[in-house]
């Protein structure tokens, strides 16, 4: 037996990161009887206390503009005051740099138990069969060593566990799964669906991680449309509520929050022994030893941790003999196009909150024409619209158009609910070439990310043309 310090506990499994990946590991392993220790860089989440679900803007004197009207100055909470606890693009004490030729890469980092699953849009899609062999189609990237058929049973299992709405459509870019019944379309979505069908574009029930029937003790959605605020009844999927809390209830999960992993440690013979982390409450550095270490700290943070860990036996970073850790970052590029649709004026008012987000969406339809389009891969389109809860900013367009006075009120009434958005979300290849620099300090990591964007503009132009085609019939501003 190697000599170890007698007082030092060796944990069975240590997981770094409590988002979708880390929480799944923790939940599955504790369910199998394994003891797991989970490190999270942010604080513990209390959904009942922190979520602002069902609050009205007038419940707060600042109405959502935040103290001192921070939102008016482009400051305040990411995604708005009412959005769930999350993290940010700028975090105190955690600066990062990007390459000189990259001016628009914003690195969002969650710092909360459950990570980004607390606030993501719950759009939950499968890759298509052709996504696993991209090089065969467009010569970019690499084919995966597994196929869609290999992973399909795991998609089934994940969907059955977290609960995803959808319908069986037989569309190649959006393989069918194990679905909860989707809610019916909203009124403005039906108009877009008719326009889509005329253009030959599929417009189908959305696939969102929202349950429409009870599941594992979680009640069905109550259709308040406020998924983005966090759901107190856990009727949408968040790792914090659906996996971490049940895993804690087994008594086999030890959660250490406010713990920023800094360096993976090894025994000098090529074996990982644990991790050094910063206890953000005390500012002290601690070492935790484990038999198994799971790095699930998000794509960029995991790469940073491995590259910043340079024990003697791993001079280029832990698990980086190939030299590709931190390279070939894949990101999703999204942009939104909105329009005022005068033809929707006069639509009878109704409660369009629904299951939150869009009930319909447009999966990618152009896979057969890929070689003629001038850009690789594809995108899908999300739809926004309806009679949303009025909030700070909601009626500024109408107000500007009307000027002031009685005309302003009249215009706001008329134009409420007439704004519709197409939000193409692109699957696009981005390449990152990490140039590791020394961290500035224990809590101040730096990961330069020079990005090379490959032909995103051509895809964006295509999406813009599709949007214009949608807009043509009932067009407005």
């Amino acid at each position: 037996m190697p000599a170890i310090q007698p007082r030092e506990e060796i944990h069975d499994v240590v997981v770094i990161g409590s988002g979708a990946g880390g929480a799944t590991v923790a939940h599955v392993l504790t369910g199998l009887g394994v003891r797991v220790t989970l490190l999270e860089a942010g604080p513990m989440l209390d959904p009942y206390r922190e979520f602002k679900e069902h609050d009205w803007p007038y419940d707060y004197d600042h109405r959502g503009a935040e103290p001192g009207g921070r939102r008016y100055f482009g400051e305040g909470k990411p995604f708005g005051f009412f959005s769930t606890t999350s993290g940010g693009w700028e975090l105190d004490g955690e600066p990062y740099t990007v390459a000189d030729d990259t001016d628009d890469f914003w690195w969002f980092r969650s710092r909360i138990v459950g990570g980004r699953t607390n606030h993501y849009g719950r759009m939950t899609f499968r890759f298509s069969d052709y996504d696993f062999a991209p090089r065969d189609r467009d010569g970019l990237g690499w084919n995966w060593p597994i196929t869609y058929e290999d992973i399909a049973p795991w998609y089934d299992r994940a969907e059955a566990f977290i609960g995803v709405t959808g319908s069986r459509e037989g569309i190649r870019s959006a393989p069918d799964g194990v679905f909860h019944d989707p809610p019916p379309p909203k009124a403005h979505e039906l108009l877009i669906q008719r326009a889509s069908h005329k253009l030959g574009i599929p417009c189908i029930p959305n696939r969102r991680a929202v349950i429409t029937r009870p599941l594992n003790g979680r009640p069905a959605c109550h259709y308040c449309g406020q998924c983005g605020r966090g759901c107190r009844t856990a009727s949408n999927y968040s790792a914090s509520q659906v996996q971490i809390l049940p895993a804690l209830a087994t008594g086999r999960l030890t959660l250490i929050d406010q713990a920023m992993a800094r360096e993976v440690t090894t025994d000098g013979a090529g074996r990982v022994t644990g991790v050094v982390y910063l206890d953000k409450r005390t500012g002290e550095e601690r070492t935790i030893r484990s038999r198994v270490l799971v790095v699930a700290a998000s794509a960029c943070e995991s790469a940073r941790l491995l590259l910043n860990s340079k024990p003697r036996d791993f001079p280029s970073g832990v698990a980086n003999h190939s030299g590709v850790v931190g390279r070939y970052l894949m990101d999703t590029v999204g942009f939104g196009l909105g329009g005022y649709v005068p033809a929707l004026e006069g639509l009878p008012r109704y409660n369009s909150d629904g299951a939150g987000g869009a009930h319909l969406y447009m999966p990618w339809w152009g896979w057969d024409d890929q070689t003629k389009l001038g850009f690789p891969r594809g995108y899908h389109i999300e739809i926004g619209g309806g009679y949303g809860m009025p909030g700070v900013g909601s009626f500024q367009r109408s107000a500007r158009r009307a000027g002031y006075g009685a005309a302003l009120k009249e215009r706001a009434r008329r134009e409420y609910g007439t704004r519709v958005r197409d939000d193409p979300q692109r699957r696009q290849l981005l390449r990152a070439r990490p140039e590791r620099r020394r961290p500035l300090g224990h809590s101040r990591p730096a990961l330069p990310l020079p990005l090379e964007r490959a032909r995103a503009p051509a895809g964006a132009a295509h999406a813009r043309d599709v949007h214009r085609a949608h807009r043509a019939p009932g067009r407005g501003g």
Partner: protein
Amino acid sequence: MTLSRREVLRQLAVAATSAAAGGFNLEAARVVHAFAAEERAQAGGYAPRLLTAHVRRLAELVVPADAGGGSAVDAGAPEFIDLLCSENERLADIYRRGVAWVDEETDRRGGGAFVGASSGRQTALLDALVDAERAGGAGDLAPGVRFFAWVRRMTVDAYYTSPIGIRDVGYEGNRVASAYDTPPAALEFIDRLADDLGL
């Protein structure tokens, strides 16, 4: 009040999540919503400290009372603006300078301060600002155009985030429901519209 709203919500959530495979407790949720409304009705309002007469009058002009609802003053716009200014020197400065500009301009256009002027003279100034804004916002009126944009923005926000503003536009949501349905009248409207548009 012995039980805080948060406590009720918490208990609701605990009850809902512990009901294994049972439906959501709609009745409990309705109780919570009624409770929250009651608590809000009892809450004391914010008393303005910095700005009063000018902001009050401007708010009343930007969103006046009509058959569809009260004015921005009824919706608490002056208190909203005053509170945020009291918390943010940058914002307070915008309002102090803006109010001074409005008085100077009113004086230049025929004497006196804005608040004491006839409503005809007040709206004439706002009309001039809106015209200047539509023409690009440059020129002598530029400081006034910028200030009026702030006043309108915050007044409109205050009104439409208040109970009367939300009622005015007819938002019907933020409820707890056992199912989602688009009502037949809305479906028929869309059907007719799509037919008319040739879709």
